[in-house]
């Protein structure tokens, strides 16, 4: 049943560029980016129980990685950009994680927020390196060494780049599915549920949290690369703490207790935000209100709601 739903979703997503207006198609791209980022984020949050308020840092690393590689170092290959930016995020994540996983709950949140803002400060102030508040341009990459020179920017984005990103989402999603259902994933859940007992069962709590952190950083960076190529620019606001807050928002909106929750959350958030922005200049208020309602009324998010509905229907 579940596999049918996934297959259907992939087919629908693949069909979108053929049937929908380019505007909507270009919205799906950031949804892909955030979906991948959130798959990683939720490994740390939903599965390991650590709430980071600074993960936008790694999204920014991905974006700036793509920017520096493409416009300053002339790297054209999308594959290389993805790998190097991802690796860079893991490298940056190592000291951050080492220092942060010693703590839990609110201290973990504040520490990660501090690291995120530290990076933001760095991006903002060191103009010569990072372009300051304007950021750095991101150039179009080549996909599997193909340039697609004949396509203009939009055509490239809603065409080959779209399908590539869809493919990335499927592949990375599958990988995360395996991770979450592996012995490692089981131990992460144990750590979340009762870290003391997990220790007594021989689980190296800090080490596993560290690994989860590194994986989440990698995924966030990949998401950041996609976001940056889509907008053509890497800017410091990507690392601001409110952007980290949005990552949490999206995850909870979709449902953090479910594997697919973050994906649902990413897509819903992007489209909701877009519609609200078109409807009123006070879209932040309504976005905030949505989060409020979710937290108070539907803490298990949209997937939680969907599963509740399904069990009610089945009972009849």
């Amino acid at each position, binding site marked *: 049943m579940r596999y049918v739903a996934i297959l259907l979703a992939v087919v629908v997503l693949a069909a979108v560029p053929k049937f929908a207006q380019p505007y909507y198609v270009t919205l799906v791209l950031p949804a892909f980016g955030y979906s991948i980022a959130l798959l990683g984020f939720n490994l740390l949050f939903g599965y390991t129980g650590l709430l980071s308020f600074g993960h936008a840092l790694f999204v920014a690393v991905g974006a700036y990685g793509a920017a520096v590689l493409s416009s300053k170092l002339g790297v054209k290959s999308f594959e290389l950009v993805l790998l190097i930016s991802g690796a860079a995020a893991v490298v940056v994540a190592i000291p951050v994680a080492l220092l942060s996983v010693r703590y839990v709950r609110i201290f973990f949140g504040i520490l990660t927020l501090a690291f995120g803002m530290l990076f933001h400060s760095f991006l903002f102030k060191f103009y010569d390196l990072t372009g300051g508040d304007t950021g750095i341009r991101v150039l179009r990459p080549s996909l599997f060494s193909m340039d697609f020179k004949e396509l203009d920017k939009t055509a490239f984005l809603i065409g080959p780049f779209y399908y590539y990103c869809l493919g990335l989402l499927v592949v990375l999603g599958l990988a995360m599915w*395996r*991770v979450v*259902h*592996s*012995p*490692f*994933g*089981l*131990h992460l*859940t*144990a750590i979340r*549920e*009762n870290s*003391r*007992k*997990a*220790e*007594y*069962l*021989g*689980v*190296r*709590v800090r080490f*596993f949290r560290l*690994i989860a952190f590194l994986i989440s950083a990698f995924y966030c960076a990949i998401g950041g690369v996609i976001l940056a190529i889509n907008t053509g620019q890497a800017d410091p606001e990507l690392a601001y703490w409110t952007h980290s807050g949005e990552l949490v928002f999206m995850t909870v909106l979709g449902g953090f207790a479910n594997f697919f929750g973050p994906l649902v959350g990413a897509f819903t958030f992007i489209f909701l935000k877009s519609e609200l922005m078109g409807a009123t200049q006070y879209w932040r208020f309504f976005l905030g209100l949505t989060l409020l309602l979710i937290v108070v009324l539907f803490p298990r998010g949209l997937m939680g709601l969907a599963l509740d509905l399904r069990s009610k229907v089945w009972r009849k």
Partner: protein
Amino acid sequence: MTALIETVGVGKSYGDFVALDDVSLSISEGELVSIVGPNGAGKTTLVNVLTGLLKPTAGVVRFKGEDIAGIGPVMLSQRGMARSFQLVHIFPAMTVAETIAVAVISRSGKSLDLFSPARSDATVRATVRDVAAIFGLDGKLDAESRLLSQGEKKLLDIASAFALSPEVILLDEPTSGVSSGDKHGIMRNVVDAAKRAGVKAIILVEHDMDLVAEYSSRIVALTAGKVLADRAPADFFGDPAIIAAVVGKWVGKSAKGA
């Protein structure tokens, strides 16, 4: 017989407060040693020292000849000792099977496996089922831990410690919260299963003197941080002064053979 686990002159003080004072005991293969004493006597502190959670301020604590002062729970489980808890410790959202699997997998050293499907590994599932069966939980493998009764949660706690295939297992009030009718049944199960599984020694912390009398090969009584007595059950229950100090009143039921 060399001691499997021993403490030599162990003391633990917190500033002026002395929790343990010159505690020496040794436990050898094949023994089931009970630690008894009134509340506040230092049982918990001793347990924490024996399980590597607390570093003693004086003396040594050794497991299989190696110093284990403060090595922490992870290293302890790797060396072959496991414990269950007085206050129930479970993974609320995980099922019985998953809980036991955590122990089985970590014992097998395959924890860092990121890609194989944990739930469907046949060997793991078989082991999980076997361990659950010892404790009568094999009918509830897919039940969420938080939905179990208090007694069942207790059993799960012990079962998961068991699943580590430890050489020594420390049971901290394993039958508290279990109905009296079941207590003996459970102890019997645990002791028999332990023998079958190759557990070499059991340390038991208990308040229920009937159980202590029935199953211990030796009883260690603590009062105010000191060892009051360290004797076989017959000697122990034959001495009214000791009983009075430990339980507070004479216990009618005597040990087997007395």
